C-alpha cells in the first residue's frame, strides 16, 4: 500500500479517464500521484509529478519540473519504489520549507 501521510485529497481522475488522483502537500510543495486504467493489469503504474500549490482555496497547483527531485513525470511500477520516492520528496519539501523560512520576508 502506498503512503497515506501528507495526503490531502483523494479524488477521481478529474479528466474523466478513470482511475484516481492523490494529492500530497507539505508547505507549498507536494506530489500529484495518478493511477489510470490499463488494458492489462501488469501495465498499471503510478505517475508522479512534483507540484507547487498556488492556492489553497480553491485548491490549485502547477506542475513543478524544476526541483532536484524530478525534471519530468516519473513512473513507478510498484508501491515500494513509489514510497521510497515519496519519503525522499517529503524530506526534501521539509528542508525546502525550512530554508524558505530563513529567507528575509518581502
Amino acid at each position, binding site marked *: 500500500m502506498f503512503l497515506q501521510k501528507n495526503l490531502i485529497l483523494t479524488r*477521481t481522475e*478529474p479528466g474523466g479517464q*478513470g482511475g*484516481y488522483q492523490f494529492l500530497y502537500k507539505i508547505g507549498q510543495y507536494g506530489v500529484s500521484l495518478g*493511477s489510470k*486504467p490499463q488494458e492489462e493489469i501488469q501495465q498499471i503504474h503510478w505517475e508522479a509529478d512534483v507540484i507547487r500549490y498556488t492556492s489553497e482555496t480553491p485548491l490549485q497547483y502547477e506542475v513543478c519540473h524544476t526541483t532536484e527531485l524530478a525534471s519530468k513525470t516519473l513512473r513507478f511500477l510498484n508501491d515500494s519504489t513509489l514510497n521510497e520516492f515519496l519519503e525522499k520528496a517529503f524530506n526534501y519539501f521539509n528542508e525546502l520549507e525550512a530554508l524558505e523560512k530563513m529567507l528575509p520576508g518581502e
Partner: protein
Amino acid sequence: MSNAVAKPKDWVPKGDLQKEISAEKMLLELPRELLFITGSEAAREAIKRANIDCAISYPITPQSETMQQAGYLYDEGYIKEYYRAEEEIGVMSATAGASRAGVRALTATSGPGLMRGMEAISSWPGARVTPVLLDMCRVINTPLAIQPDNIEISFLLNTGMIMLHAENQQDFFDYTLAACEVTEHVDVTLPAMVSVDGFFVTHARGPVSIPSDEYKLNRRDGWRSAVPAMDNENPPARISRDAPIQKSNFISYHMHASWQQEVFAALERSGKYFEKLLKGRIEIINPEAEDFIICSGSAVSQAREAVRQEGENGRVVGLVKVKTLRPFPTTSIVNALKNAKRILIPEFNQAGWMHKEVCSVLYGKCKANIVDGPRVFGGMTMPTEMVIEWLAKARKDFP
C-alpha cells in the same frame, strides 16, 4: 486427456478453513484493511468471501479477468464448482440451473455477452432463482467498442431482478457480498445483477477496504426459499413452475399476472435489506442545496469532484448517489429532491435511462427543472469540468 494435476490427498480446500458469518457482520462489523486494487481484483476478493458453490464463466472484455480470477479461487478451494461454458446463453441457463438446485451460483459478463444471455437472464426472476451476475458494462451498440458505456443496464430494468450499480472498486466489493445474501432471503428469492462501469473501475486501481479472508458468508440453504429447490437426484419430468403458465387460457393469464406481481413485490421487499447493508440505498451530499446532481455508477465519482470544486468556489451543490437501481429508491429520491430547483443527471450512455427513471418518480412531486445531461457514450470521457459547465448553464437557463 486432462493435463490437470491432481491435488495431494491431504489437500484441504481453503474455503473449508473459512468461518461462516452473516453479511451484516462481514460488511458492517469486521475490521478492514485498506488495499489499492483494481475492480476485477475487488470482485475476486468479494467472491473469495461469498461462499460460492458454483461459478460458470465465458470470457468477454472487460469481464474476463474477473472470472479468470474466479478460476484461481476454484483451484485454491474457495469455489466448489467452476467451468467455462459454451457461450452466454449456456452460461446463464446453467447458472439458473445451479441456483434452482439450491446452491449459490455466480457468473459475470459484459455488454454483448449480457445481450446474448438476455433470454435466459430475463427468465430468472420469474423462476425465483437467486444467482448473482456481475456485469462490467461496455459498449453494445454499433460502432462496437470495448470502452465504458452502460446502456446495457436499461435492457434489464424491467426484468424483476435486483440491480445495483457500483460507483467504484469499493462498491463493487461491498455490493457483491450484499447481493449474495439479500437474493436468498425467503421474502426475496430473486436474482441480482451488480453492475460496474468497465475499464474505469475494472481495469483501474482504487482504494478498497476489506475484511479478513478468514471469513465467508453463511452458506445458502436451498430449502429456505420462496420456492423449493429442485432435487436433482430425482428431477421432475417437467419443471412444475412453468407448465400451467404455458397454456393459453384464462387461468394461465391470471397465474402469469399474479406471479409477476409477486416478483415485483419481492423486489420491493429486498429494499429493506440493502438499506441496512449498504447504509442506505442512496447517498446524499449537501441535502440543503438548490442545485442537485443525481446519478449512479462512475458518473458519481465525476459528480463528487464537481461538487467539491463548486464548494471551493462558494457554490453549494447537492449530490444524490443511487445505489440500487432495482428496487428504485423512489421515496428516498423524492424526499431528497423535493426542494431542489435544478437537477442535473450525468450518464455514460446514449439512452438516458437514469433521466427517464428520475423524471418518472419526480413527476408531480418536485418543481425542479430537470436537465437531461451531461451524457457521454461509446467510451467518451466525462471530465469534471463538463459537469461544472452544465451546472453553470443550468443556472443561466433556469435562474
